[in-house]
């Protein structure tokens, strides 16, 4: 598969009378966005607001972040099996409104949605402070279950992301990137002298609103499989997650998976990037055993010399991470795992819930329990009602002046386990 990504650089977002992109500015027409969101009868009301980098704005509770993209050439549409038909994606050309995002907000569970500050110390921890955000605050109809509410918010974000992505279809991109992975034997033969490296992509699938979808199928129900890395760039994997904000992969993360990008950056230089193996993080032991057996089997089947394994979430999935690592190492394949830590507010506890000597190469996104003080912002998009209850928050987190003392766990994307950020930790 060969995919061209055409980046249209977005430097500003403004309300307008029609949706359009002009001179690097995304104009959004509130009425048309509302119309799309309110097609879903489970949604009572939606408020559209804008947040730009550097503005004194706090967005919470944040559920998902979606990057507007559109297929220009090649089969399928963005978010296949969810928004469009379930055609295979990952080839041809895709245009991206780079620098823009749709941020969905809703108090689905109250304690598993995050905070995005557009300025101040909190902004340094979230990549979404650097984007021009179109925020959707979505109110459900009465008595809607959290499961239906989650789905409604998920679809709203993807639909608006697609609507805005379409605006880039006929625009000449500011920059063009090309990614290519050939069919297996051809790919191996392309760089016969370089080590064959793959990517084991663990998806959060603990269930009960800890879900991820692959071409529209619930990730709990898959057995691990092989994918071309470019498929993720066209939205083959989307987030349906309401877990701790810091280390859940939003749809934006899946579209821009930095491990895939970094492996491509070394493709043909230091390594031969052969492909990706996706796997899940189910809660039953038999599922964990089966899935980790599959990842090591597929890694062997692909003839890999090394893999990078990324985790999503923490605690229970630590066991999946260690099982994957251990079994793949036992197959004689070198591993690096990417995770984050829950070492306590004082940093003195054991960071992971599982451990094995095979995991001798670890990259960490930092200690999620570290406490941060977020100063008051001039404007709030969303609601403060849940800050004390948010994962990473505690009774008294929210002060009267609007400042918040929380664990960085509450900040969307803060300790991302796809290695999206520079944040890490070391032992003192």
């Amino acid at each position, binding site marked *: 598969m060969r995919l061209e990504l055409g980046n249209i650089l977005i430097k500003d977002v403004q309300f307008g009378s029609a949706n359009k992109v002009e001179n690097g500015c995304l104009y959004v027409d509130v009425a048309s966005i509302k119309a799309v969101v309110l097609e879903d009868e489970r949604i009572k009301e939606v408020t559209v607001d804008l947040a730009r980098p550097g503005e004194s704005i706090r967005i919470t509770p944040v559920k998902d972040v979606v990057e507007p993209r559109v297929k220009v050439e090649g089969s399928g549409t963005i978010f296949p099996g969810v928004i469009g038909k379930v055609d295979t994606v990952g080839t041809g050309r895709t245009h991206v409104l780079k620098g823009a995002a749709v941020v969905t907000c809703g108090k689905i569970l109250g304690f598993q949605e995050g905070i995005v500050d557009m300025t101040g110390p909190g902004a340094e921890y979230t990549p979404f402070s650097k984007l021009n955000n179109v925020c959707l605050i979505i109110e459900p109809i009465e008595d809607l279950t959290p499961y239906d509410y989650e789905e409604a918010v998920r679809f709203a974000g993807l639909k608006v992301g697609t609507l805005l992505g379409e605006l880039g279809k006929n625009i000449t991109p500011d920059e063009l990137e090309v990614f290519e992975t050939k069919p297996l034997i051809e790919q191996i033969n392309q760089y016969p002298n370089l080590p064959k490296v793959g990517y084991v992509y663990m998806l959060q699938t603990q269930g009960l609103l800890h879900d991820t979808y692959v071409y529209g199928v619930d990730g709990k129900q898959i057995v691990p499989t092989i994918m071309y890395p470019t498929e993720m760039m066209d939205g083959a994997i989307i987030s349906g997650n309401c877990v701790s904000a810091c280390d859940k992969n939003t749809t934006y993360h899946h579209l821009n998976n930095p491990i895939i990008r970094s492996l491509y950056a070394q493709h043909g230089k230091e390594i031969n990037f052969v492909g990706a193996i996706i796997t899940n993080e189910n809660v039953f032991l038999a599922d964990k055993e089966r899935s980790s057996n599959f990842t090591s089997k597929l890694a062997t089947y692909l003839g890999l010399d090394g893999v990078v394994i990324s985790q999503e979430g923490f605690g229970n999935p630590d066991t999946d991470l260690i099982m994957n690592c251990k079994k793949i190492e036992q197959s004689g394949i070198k591993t690096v795992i990417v995770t984050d830590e829950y070492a306590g507010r004082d940093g*003195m506890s054991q960071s992971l819930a599982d451990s094995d000597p095979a995991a001798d190469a670890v990259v960490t996104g930092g200690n999620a329990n570290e406490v941060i003080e977020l100063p008051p912002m001039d404007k709030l998009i969303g609601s403060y009602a849940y800050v004390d209850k948010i994962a990473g928050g505690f009774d008294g987190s929210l002060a009267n002046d609007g400042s918040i003392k929380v664990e960085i766990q509450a900040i969307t994307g803060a300790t991302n386990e796809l290695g999206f950020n520079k944040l890490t930790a070391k032992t003192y």
Partner: protein
Amino acid sequence: MALKVIHYINQFFANVGGEEMANYAPELRKGAVGPGIGLNAAFAGEAEVVATVICGDSYFNEHTDTAVSKIINLIKDIKADIFIAGPAFNAGRYGTACGGIASEVERELNIPVVSAMYIENPGADIYKKEMYIISTKGSATGMRAALPKLAKLALKIARGEEILDPDTEGYIPRGIRKNYFADKIGAERAVEMIIKKLKKEEFKTEYPMSKFDRVEPGKAIKNMSKTRIAIVTSGGIVPIGNPDRVEASSASKYGIYNIANVLSLAENAYETAHGGYDPVYANHNPNRVVPLDVLKDLEKEGVIGSLHPYFYSTTGNGTAVKSSHEFAEEIAATLIADGVQAVILTST
């Protein structure tokens, strides 16, 4: 003005004597003695050892409470800026004494402390979380290298300056994880790491895995009808009111409870002391955690030989592995002496 330093050393480094003088009681001498002279040189006038405490290693370890109170009394009026203990290198009792006294001095007198020893000294393991311990060689041949580092760190601590990472300062990592922003994103670091690992080049993991003490389960028991069984739990089941005050979290003790004449753990007689899980179901029926009712039935039916008339209970909630290890050693020794052949361990 030079900062005031109190230095703690053992009988050997004070030239009092070797093992035969290990029972030497605490003594305070003015000025520097032994390694303290080297410390003074390293301070280059910025600090000065004003007094030296000398104590035999056996004395300290065998009469810790007495030793601590004597030493505190000896030094409490000095108003030192920092208390330095060691270097102890790999001398185990010296290391635990250095850590032990430094810990008490900091707590009682509110004076900052620092020590130095070899990473495998048991004192390092016990006290590295509480204090900075400069990493030294295993023997006194490392004195020359250790003293300047110890002096430098002591000055920084005494002045309240920021203490940098273990590699920079030379102390034994205390196991405290701290966040910082690296130069590159995690994904790039991961790809660089896999490339190095594949090339068999040196790489540095960002999180050294904790070593879990994996215990092989015992062999299956063939004939249960002849076996004496005991119950040990980390689920915190105790008689109502928690008479032994087993802590809800980070337990420092365990309780032993007689169940010879108890057929089932009743709701109003037992409860959980554990602070790490929802106690409703355990308190409603404590047999859920300590399955006494079923075991008594099995005993009566002859399925098991007999049930040991005591159960052992602690809370596994945030309890240090070291404490658990100590509890287990004591409990196992008692159970073996009591003729118990198998133990059911329940957790929550």
